[in-house]
């Protein structure tokens, strides 16, 4: 057996290539890199640095908190974690230097290139904490994507500068979902007949907001929220984005949802009772909320896809560690071909999903179809991978201490939020309806 192993080892390309001419040898992969490193090398140079930095941060700062965030989210204190993340520049990646921390070259390629790469690394350590760290991007994105200079100068730039240079984090959340309108507010056709309950009434100097929003990530801890509301007496066409700061009279946090996973990040109800919002807090133009919302989702869906891939990678990695350690009879699990086939299948699926996400980043303005395709494909794939990882581990797979089940619970949400995957599939058709699917 040992002789067979020795001969098989000698046949590996990195060894047998010694028999090739010198130039031929240079064309051979030396098998020196890990899967992760191989993949990192395909990224633009400045992005590789971000990926390495994010992975280190995830290992050092996120992973140790993962179990606590899941078991006892009520007492999970994010303050120190946020301060460290701000110091590393993770909260300011939606804008290039010197205001933000992204590199110009990447930024000109795609505004969310860096956040999408970071999202996978954070989520590979824990889905809930990753969401907590990524959601502020979603909250502030409407300010940036509105292209409204006064809003950007008033809210975006000061926030980024204070975060980047003083380590002072002001977090934003994004509020579109309502008790009677979930998927409606993410789909053109649904929106027309949506039962929208959050309304804004024009008053002197501003607007009065009434209604409620639900399932708002980081809703309970945010310093400000970008809230979408229709104007009183009008329909979805009048949707307008308002920035509502914590502490405004009549604005309060309602119930905290008890979720199956991603528990470190709160999903809260926000209640508005005659909340006065000054005119200066209208983000973009009045009645400009719908295209802004749709565009924010186009930019955020690849990030959600990337988080799902990260969580699935977390599940895969814990299953892999298990297979390396666990013995069945006298052999380690990983030595069984059945196990190798399963692990290989997971690697393939993760590669495929990641490739589609990277494809979406090739567009400066991410098209709806590719954003939705990458989100629905990656999250469905991640769910499959997490199931395979748990199945590989058998009974050990559902024990909390082995981590895999936490990733499995976390991933399930990614198939639902940012539009259910059914709705995202329809969004692909909707986008190209008058070109390809006429």
């Amino acid at each position, binding site marked *: 057996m040992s002789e067979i192993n020795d001969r098989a080892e000698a046949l590996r390309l990195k060894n047998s290539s010694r028999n090739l001419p010198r130039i031929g040898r240079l064309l051979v992969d030396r098998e020196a890199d890990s899967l992760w490193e191989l993949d990192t090398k395909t990224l633009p140079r400045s992005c590789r640095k971000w990926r390495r930095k994010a992975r280190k941060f995830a290992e050092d700062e996120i992973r140790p908190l993962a179990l606590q965030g899941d*078991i006892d989210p009520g007492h999970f204190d994010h303050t120190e974690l946020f301060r460290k993340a701000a110091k590393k520049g993770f909260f300011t990646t939606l804008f290039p230097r010197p205001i933000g921390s992204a590199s110009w070259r990447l930024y000109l390629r795609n505004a969310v290139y860096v956040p999408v790469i970071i999202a996978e690394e954070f989520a590979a350590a824990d889905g809930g904490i990753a969401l907590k760290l990524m959601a502020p991007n979603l909250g502030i994105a409407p300010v940036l994507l509105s292209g409204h200079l006064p809003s950007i100068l008033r809210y975006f730039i000061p926030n980024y500068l204070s975060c980047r240079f003083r380590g002072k984090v002001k977090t934003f959340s994004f509020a579109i*979902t309502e008790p*009677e*309108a*979930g*998927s*409606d507010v993410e*789909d053109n*056709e*649904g929106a*027309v*007949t*949506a*039962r929208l309950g959050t309304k804004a009434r024009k008053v002197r100097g501003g607007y009065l907001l009434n209604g409620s929003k*639900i*399932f708002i990530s980081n809703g309970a801890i945010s310093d400000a929220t970008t809230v979408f509301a229709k104007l009183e007496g009008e329909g979805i066409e009048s949707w307008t984005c308002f920035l509502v700061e914590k502490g405004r009279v009549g604005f309060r946090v309602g119930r905290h*949802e*008890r*979720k*199956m*996973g991603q528990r470190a990040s709160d*999903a809260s109800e926000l209640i508005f009772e005659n909340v006065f919002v000054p005119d200066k807090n209208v983000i973009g133009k009045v009645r400009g909320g719908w295209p802004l919302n749709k565009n924010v989702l186009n930019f955020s869906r690849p990030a959600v896809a990337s988080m799902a891939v990260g969580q699935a990678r977390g599940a895969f990695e814990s299953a892999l560690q298990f297979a390396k350690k666990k*013995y*069945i*009879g*006298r052999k380690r699990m990983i030595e069984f071909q*059945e*196990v190798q086939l*399963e692990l290989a299948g997971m690697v393939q699926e993760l590669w495929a999903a990641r490739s589609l996400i990277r494809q979406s980043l090739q567009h400066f303005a991410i098209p709806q179809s590719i954003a939705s395709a990458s989100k629905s494909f990656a999250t469905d794939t991640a*769910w499959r991978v997490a199931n395979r990882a*748990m*199945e*590989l*581990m*058998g*009974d050990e*797979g*559902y*024990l*909390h*201490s082995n981590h895999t*089940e936490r990733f*499995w*619970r976390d991933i*399930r*949400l990614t*198939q*639902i*939020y940012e539009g*259910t*995957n*059914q*709705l995202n599939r*329809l969004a692909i058709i909707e986008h190209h309806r008058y070109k390809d699917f006429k």
Partner: protein
Amino acid sequence: MNTSTNKDKLPGKEDVQFILSSVRDWSEHMLQPAFRNGLPDGDRALLKKAIEALYDLGVIFHPDPSSAGYELGVWGAYTGAMGPHYSLRILNEIAKTCASVAFLVHQQGIASASLLSWEKGADEELRRISFAFQDAGGMPAARILFDQEGASWEAFETRAQRIAGGYELRGRKNFVYGQKESRALVVPARLEEQWALFFVPMNAEGLGSRDAGRRTGLRYLQLEHVELGKVRLKQDALIAGGEAARAIFVRTLTRNWLGMAAIAKGIAEGSMEAAGQYVQERYQGGTRIKNHAAIRSLLSNAYSKVEMAGDLIERAAQMHSGKDQLREAARLKLIVLDECSRVVSDMMQVFGGYGYMQEFRIEKRLRDIQVLKLNAGSPLYLNKFIYDLKEDSL
């Protein structure tokens, strides 16, 4: 213990219908209230009361012929003569509301049934017993189960040896499901290259157990790893040895997988009923969500899968016990658990964001069915197991 069943005394259709309708009433009035307080895994005190009521109803099997659950308890004494249909229907019905309770009834039933041929007899203690399927190294391979060529007893870690006045057991049993304060275990072990089944009280000297820790689902039940360190047992602790022990193990394993499939189908049906109600009430795009093709497609697929699961369970239940039925039960566990867990996941999708929140209880069903899918034979294990059994008959 008296194991004979008089065919004239076998319960008729009316008795079965009566028990089934009693279980439905019990479920509505005792089980469902345990989930109305919003606790994700139910109110433990109310669940305990509900389970006590099930004992009184005679739905939980107890191997004492004078007890209420002896005849019509799940996997009760008449199962051999009646076939498993009745037990499977009861488990299916309970699992529509709570898989943990269904699994508890099931586990108690299969463990108790293994004592029917035991000479020592039952007492009140046996209201809480568990069957320990797995060694620390995993489930027993098909090759061991049927003493096939190439069978390696090395892989069977729990061993017994004869000592003066009895037996000594050594080994570890992992992932043993039971009730709080389980009183005894039925432990399969290797005795002189033969099968043996032992009755091991939880307070036996040398027996240690530790909680398996936090887990995804079936949280009402106790889950333990058991250490058997030189556990000394008296002569009468041997339930069965040799061929009889092997036959009991095969029968118990078969019933375990059949029951798990029935519970999985019940979980799927419960989630479909909840989703069916939700689609009537929830509006999206100006219409009830039941009018959306995406939702109809999810529901339609779910109906088909659950119907298919029912057909497969029925087919397996009709087979004669033994190797063929065991293979069928393994297939059932592999296919039905997978399909039904997809159904539950799809029903969560119907609920959208609400499905992910604990108060709607779809997420509990998804967690529970995932645990069932992995317990006592993961898909990977079952694939190999089925192949080994099939190869033997080729």
